[in-house]
């Protein structure tokens, strides 16, 4: 597997389990008939294009937990979906264990799809309310021939035990469970096809603190048991700090900073990361003076030119308004996209 050796992103040991090279995802809203007619008369209307993910290059090493952080609308969920194969990338290459997703044969693609599983934010909307838990968890392994009809009951029971649910609940429906239990069903469903890689999209955001702690512990325990790799998408920096080995910060579709978790939380480089960290409420800061970042995330339909963060950045210069900063390695394993790093 030599495909990944000339990796452009942060180098990690061996072939990374996942590699993204210049991956972009654009959503295009084509012109409707009325607009097309208007264009005939010179209205000059254009397709609406959203650059949800814009030229992202990153790697995830085997067994690593990578936290993907950003505000709503920054494209983190879209990136997660591209990785999980829900959306195809518009351009760029996604490599899973060094092999391009786009050139895989049908059988290979199916194997990859099984190896990458996704856990969603709201278990109520990602679990079919009309199916019993045994069908929710057991359907995929049955279809993919991992288990036969006779063995299914035992198999489902084993999966439920793995995530800390009583196997006797297998005949219940999702609405008969609490939020935390439902999230566990979602995890059991993902684990049922023996994945290597889990994309967790805000998987603990909807849970109460005490339940969140239980689910986070479960994630960590499963990681050790089954040598899982996670792409953990969250807006909650506290959770990401706790769980991740490495953190990727996104802003308006672009990666602005990547570093090991300790480095990000002790010495953030990018002004956006710094601002984000300053805003995180912590138990130990009391009666603090809130000093807010100005403005809010601009519309991805019409992002600002140059560095996307410049309208909100306290250090913005003329250069930031014009030129897009590239993601550069500023220290071993630390990447940041900011002109300020180019010296004074």
């Amino acid at each position: 597997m030599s495909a990944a050796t000339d990796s452009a992103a942060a180098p990690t040991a061996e072939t990374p389990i996942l590699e993204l090279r210049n991956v972009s995802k654009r959503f295009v809203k084509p012109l409707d008939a009325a607009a097309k007619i208007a264009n005939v008369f010179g209205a000059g209307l254009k397709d609406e294009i959203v650059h949800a993910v814009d030229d992202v290059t990153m790697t995830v090493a085997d067994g690593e937990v990578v936290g993907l952080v950003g505000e709503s609308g920054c494209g983190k969920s879209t990136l997660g979906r591209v990785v999980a194969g829900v959306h195809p990338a518009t351009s760029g290459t996604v490599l899973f264990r060094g092999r391009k997703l786009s050139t895989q044969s049908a059988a290979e693609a199916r194997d990859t799809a099984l190896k990458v599983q996704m856990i969603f934010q709201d278990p109520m909307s990602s679990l079919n309310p009309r199916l019993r838990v045994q069908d929710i968890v057991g359907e995929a392994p049955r279809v993919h021939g991992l288990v036969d009809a006779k063995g299914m009951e035992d198999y489902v029971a084993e999966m439920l035990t793995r995530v800390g649910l009583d196997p006797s609940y297998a005949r219940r429906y999702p609405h008969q469970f609490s939020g935390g239990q439902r999230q566990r069903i979602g995890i059991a469903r993902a684990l049922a096809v023996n994945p290597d890689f889990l994309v967790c999209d805000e998987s603990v955001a909807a849970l109460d603190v005490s339940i969140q702690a239980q689910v986070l512990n479960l994630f960590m325990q499963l990681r050790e048991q089954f040598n899982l790799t996670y792409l953990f998408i969250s807006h909650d920096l506290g959770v990401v700090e706790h769980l991740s080995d490495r953190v990727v910060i996104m802003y308006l579709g672009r990666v602005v900073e990547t570093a090991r978790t300790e480095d990000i939380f002790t010495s953030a480089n990018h002004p956006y990361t710094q601002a984000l960290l300053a805003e995180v409420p912590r138990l130990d800061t009391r009666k603090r003076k809130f000093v807010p970042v100005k403005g809010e995330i601009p519309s991805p339909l019409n992002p600002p030119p140059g560095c996307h963060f410049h309208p909100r950045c306290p250090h913005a210069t003329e250069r930031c308004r014009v030129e897009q900063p590239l993601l550069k390695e500023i220290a071993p394993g630390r990447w940041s996209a900011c002109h300020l790093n180019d010296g004074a």
Partner: protein
Amino acid sequence: MANSDVPTLEVRNLQTHFFTRAGVVKAVDDVSFAVRPGEILGLVGESGSGKTVTGFSILGLVDEPGRVVDGEMLYKGENLVNASDERMRQLRGNNIAMIFQDPMMTLNPVLRIDTQMIEAIQAHENVSRAEAWERSRAALQQVGIPAAEERLKSYPHQFSGGMRQRVAIAIALLNKPDLIVADEPTTALDVTIQGQILYEVQKLCEETGTAMIWITHDLSVVAGLADEICVMYAGRVVEHGSVDAVLDNPTHPYTHGLINSVPSRNKRGQPLSQIPGMTPSLLNLPPGCPFKTRCPRVGPDCEVTPEITHPVVGRDVRCHYPVPAGEDAARAGATASPEVTA
């Protein structure tokens, strides 16, 4: 902040029950607290702990089959429990305002912002439309909405989530209330937007002396914002004291567990200390302490509902075996409970 001794709102032994076909749900069971002018009280609890129903009870918004069955809510000495519907209507939005988690609960989607704001002013005061408009504009500016004049003409859907919440807060501020009940107003927002809103709220309470009840499940927000904290569990306040004291030295095992399950308090990568089990159903709650099934310090006395005690000065705690200062709840429980049973 004159006469800050007189509380803006004092809640005494509030009981709000829901009479469902399946039985009586004691959503709020004997809750007492007070907020003084300029003070922010954090009401913390997990889903189903009764924190929202407490907020709704204060504004008289509890619907059938729910009812405030007992207790007093004294707004500047006036008992709101006995207030007529007409009196409540006068107070609501004028003296006492509420901010909801979802701003679309406050805003009418088919009316422009200016229409809604002017209506809120004219419902309580006899002022001209022009004056009401000017006050609306000032309120939007106060919560940091740029180009307030332009934005007044917009419809709610033309605002982003954070901006919409600001509009909801601006509407709450319109009539300069003495008390604002904020029910998870920043839960759905991004951290940077949350920071902006907390900044506005903090400034407001300092400058105008508005008292605030901040209902949330997020302990870290309360840590940065509030003066006092009430921790609720299964309809009861289990611990009440100043933010510093409660967060640094929690005495109720539930508060202890809650603080320890916040990721930032734990070492990275280490398992989080978790509270086993889940919140009990409030329907037919078994007698005794509702936390006993999840508590590491449970003992024989827990079969009896604990009354409020004061193990530390200035602290109300409902627990038979409070955690002594500086001790680890779980470890203490492991050694303490056999002693008690013996």
